[in-house]
């Protein structure tokens, strides 16, 4: 529609718009101050970017800090969205002003459009002035460069979409609210209602459902679609998620259009009521009652350990009378609509029985192989992606395995592993489940290597290596699990060099490789880069200047045949004065257990120091394998051994404070340090089996 047509149809009355805009000076100031204090002032307070660093690093650090600062501005943008949304609808929230404006010779849509445009123009004007100040500050710091412009542009676009969405939601809430307070409250509730409800509904099911995998359904990606609030906080600095931005803009436009439709039906005489439309009021009441029911339910379950149905009932009843009192604006109306309360309570009881208490054992239901189009599986904590199984035979084997799962929350006496499976049904939603599968489960020892072969378990390590390569001079904080303890090596390890050796040696982390126990692992706790000042010969650890550090924790297994990697790491252990094996003593004794039955009361045999020393070469220290890969190590789970080491330490005769009083320290020997060992499959010596006969 052309501007001319807009004018001729009186959708837009320029004289009215100009008049409204003329009176928005205060609101322009509000928008300006929000930008000034959340963007320009923090930019002024940037301080020194760090000395002795090159221009490139300076730019990177500036861009990083600019992104951090936009966190403040985003909060301010959200607040401005609510503020200007309230402002837009304010003229219809007060009885006197509503009557006055609606008596003017204007159509309702002309009034609303003028109000929307004047609010948006006021906001844009204030923001533009504030941005000019912010840009001046950046220019004064000499950082008005392409990279900074790009970051600024992306963040501003993000914030514009965020503002528009928050504004549209607030305006939409105003279309059926009777006063500004209710409008703002409803807007704030609506931002969090959907994600919180989804979380609570899933949490309510998870309480009694042993296999329900809530995490699958509430992925960050999914939750980001349920509320606009998370949008600007997502990392958008590299690639702008255009598609999602377009969707949010469409949502905003749709809400504004809906506002126009609802506004046409708005009864001015109802101004001042809490909610103008009785049905909308009821809908809001029941939506809030549903939330309160779940809050009561979960509160009683989590803090009281039971009586969740009582919590559910309390939530419903209390929210019912509170909502009624607010809607009717008098405590006398608190029991209005008791019939609805009864019906809703019955529905909640059905929900409780079917969904939360799972009386029909929905959680245990496993579809048949032919009902599935495919299945996705992930062994917990491997950091790998889901492995997809399409063929019916594998799916059948998987379903048999899942059918043998224990209804336990990790309290099984049998060692095992958590497996997450997503069963994609031909008809119906995907079933995301989490099972605890003991190693002793039928088919388990065939499944795990097959899974490892299919899954790209090395992918996280490759990604890690790629990230490291983007850094100019990367070094790492390092922990090495070796020789029975953590040997901490400082922050001086050239991680890029190590990764070069490591990735060459490890080959493929397939089923064969991974089923053998690792001899050690190294754990990268964080990676930082180092900078070299112009003209200086020494590198500076940028961490000393307080930032430029990537916090990563990654455990990488090292196998016996990876000699170059082991040599690389042991060299660093040697150079670190603080590094020492935590297990310094000799084996004093051991207890061998044989697992039998589910009681946990296993037969055991105690070994002497000599017997223990003789047994050690056969044993596997599972702790040397990173936690995420332990499930794949092919262990004999029938026997395990707890070895006690005697250690020598120095103790003061009179406790910890003895040194102060000059007592002589006395070396003491302890034999209470115990470690659990396993036998790799097929390596249990005959002598051990003999012990239990």
């Amino acid at each position, binding site marked *: 529609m052309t501007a001319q047509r807009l004018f001729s149809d009186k959708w837009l009355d320029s004289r009215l718009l*100009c008049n409204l805009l003329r009176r928005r000076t205060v609101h322009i100031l509000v928008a300006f101050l929000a930008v000034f204090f959340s963007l320009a002032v923090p930019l002024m307070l940037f301080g020194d970017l760090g000395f002795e660093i090159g221009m490139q690093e300076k730019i990177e650090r500036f861009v990083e800090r600019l992104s951090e600062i936009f966190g403040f501005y985003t909060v301010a943008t959200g607040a401005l969205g609510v503020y200007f949304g309230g402002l837009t609808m304010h003229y219809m929230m007060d009885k006197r002003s509503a009557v006055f404006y609606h008596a003017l010779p204007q159509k309702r849509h002309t009034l609303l459009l003028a109000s929307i445009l004047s609010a948006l123009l006021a906001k844009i004007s204030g923001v533009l002035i504030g941005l000019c100040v912010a840009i001046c500050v950046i220019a004064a710091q000499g950082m008005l460069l392409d990279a900074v412009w790009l970051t600024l542009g992306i963040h501003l676009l993000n914030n514009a979409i965020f503002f528009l969405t928050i504004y549209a939601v607030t305006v939409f809430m105003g279309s059926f609210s009777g006063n500004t307070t209710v409008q703002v409250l409803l807007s704030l509730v609506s931002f969090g209602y959907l994600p919180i409800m989804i979380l609570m509904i899933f949490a309510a099911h998870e309480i009694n459902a042993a296999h329900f995998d809530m995490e699958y359904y509430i992925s960050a990606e999914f939750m980001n679609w349920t509320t606009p609030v998370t949008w600007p906080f997502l990392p958008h600095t590299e690639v702008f998620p255009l598609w999602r931005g377009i969707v949010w803009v469409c949502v905003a436009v749709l809400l504004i259009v809906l506002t126009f439709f609802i506004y046409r039906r708005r009864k001015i005489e109802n101004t001042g009521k809490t909610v103008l439309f009785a049905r909308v009021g009821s809908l809001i009441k029941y939506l809030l009652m549903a939330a309160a029911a779940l809050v009561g339910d979960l509160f009683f379950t989590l803090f009281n350990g039971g009586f969740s149905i009582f919590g559910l009932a309390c939530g419903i009843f209390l929210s019912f009378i509170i909502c009624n009192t607010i809607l009717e604006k008098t405590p006398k109306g608190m029991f209005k609509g008791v019939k609805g309360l009864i019906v809703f309570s019955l529905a909640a009881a059905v929900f409780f029985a079917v969904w939360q208490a799972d009386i029909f054992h929905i959680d245990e239901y496993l579809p048949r192989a032919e009902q599935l189009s495919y299945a996705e599986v992930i062994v917990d904590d491997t950091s790998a992606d889901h492995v997809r199984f399409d063929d019916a035979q594998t799916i059948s084997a998987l379903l048999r395995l899942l059918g043998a799962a224990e209804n336990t929350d990790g309290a099984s006496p049998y060692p095992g592993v958590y497996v997450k499976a997503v069963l994609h049904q031909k008809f119906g939603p995907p079933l995301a489940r989490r099972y605890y599968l003991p190693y002793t489960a039928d088919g388990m020892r065939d499944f795990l290597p097959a899974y490892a072969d299919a899954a790209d378990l090395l992918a996280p390590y490759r990604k890690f290596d790629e990230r490291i390569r983007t850094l100019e001079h990367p070094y790492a904080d390092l922990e090495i699990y070796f020789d029975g303890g953590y040997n901490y090596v400082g922050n001086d390890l050239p991680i890029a060099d190590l990764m070069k050796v490591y990735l060459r040696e490890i080959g493929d982390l397939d089923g064969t490789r991974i089923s053998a126990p690792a001899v050690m692992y190294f754990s990268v706790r964080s990676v930082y880069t180092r900078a070299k000042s112009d003209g200086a010969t020494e590198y500076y650890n940028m961490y000393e200047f307080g930032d430029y550090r990537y916090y990563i924790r990654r455990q990488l297994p090292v196998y016996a045949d990876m000699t170059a990697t082991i040599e690389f790491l042991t060299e660093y252990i040697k150079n670190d004065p603080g590094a020492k094996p935590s297990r310094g003593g000799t084996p004093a004794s051991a207890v061998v257990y044989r697992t039998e039955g589910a009681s946990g009361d296993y037969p055991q045999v105690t070994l002497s120091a000599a017997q223990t020393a003789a047994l050690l070469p056969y044993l596997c220290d599972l702790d040397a394998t990173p936690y995420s890969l332990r499930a794949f190590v092919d262990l004999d789970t029938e026997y395990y051994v707890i070895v006690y080491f005697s250690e020598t330490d120095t103790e003061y005769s009179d406790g910890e404070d003895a040194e102060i009083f000059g007592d002589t320290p006395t070396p003491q020997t302890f034999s209470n340090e115990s470690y659990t060992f396993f036998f790799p499959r097929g390596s249990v010596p005959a002598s051990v089996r003999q012990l239990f006969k």
Partner: protein
Amino acid sequence: MIKIKNVSKYYGAVKSLDGVSAEIGNGSVFGLVGSNGSGKSTLLRILCGVFRPDGGEVFYDGVSVYENPRLKDEILYLSDDQFFLPSGTLSDMAALFAASYSHFSREKFDRLVALFGLDPQRKLQTFSKGMQKQAAILLALSAEPKVLLCDETFDGLDPVMRQTVKKLLADAVAERGLTAIIASHNLRELEDICDHIGLLHKGGILFESEIDALKENIHTVQAVFDRELSPEELKTLGAVNFKKRGSMVTAVVRGTYAEVEAKMQALSPSFFEIIPLTLEEIFISEMEERGYDCTKIIL
């Protein structure tokens, strides 16, 4: 011609207007009287297109007013509870009126500001209640509407200002054929200015008529008879109201002065006097004739 056709309005379960019908001619001043809560303000808000009636319709020369900006450009609603822009001055309000009403006359505004002696640059919130009323009236008159809907407009004005406003209204009616509908519960206030009057009670118009016709067609007669009047004689008199104290008879008789005089002469009283009724008295007698206790309807 304003045609109110069977208009109903409900506030939830509460009935405010129940099938109100009336016709108001162009250029007339219509007084809408009724007690508190009788539906006067609701009717005015329907007439200016703010409220949509739940039943019936309001037409101005056959055109519906609701969501009709062209028609609303010629109608101005002067609320009993005035709205002014927050921190706004009279000039700000004038600018808004000028942007909204096509007939707004800046010249008239300046003239009225001078007449009322108000400071156009002073914030309206700092004005007294009476001054705010004056400001609202002068803004309304400056917009030069064809129809002015006044809700308790004279409340809060001092006697001098009240007369000034009445004169201004009368001038507007005379000069440019303004139609005014003035809602009030004060009959004496309306008597001076209105040519038509309607009584709204419990959501319905009980009674509607031209004031002159009302006054011309009903009179009070005070007479002294030297005999007792027979029932037949009383019947020929056609008294709406009849009271006797000794030999003195007081009666409210329907008819023009000449007709009443003729009726009285036919009864040969020793003495008689014909006195015109005040509007309030006419209303009381009319309502009593319809079976209402008017003292409970009009405050």
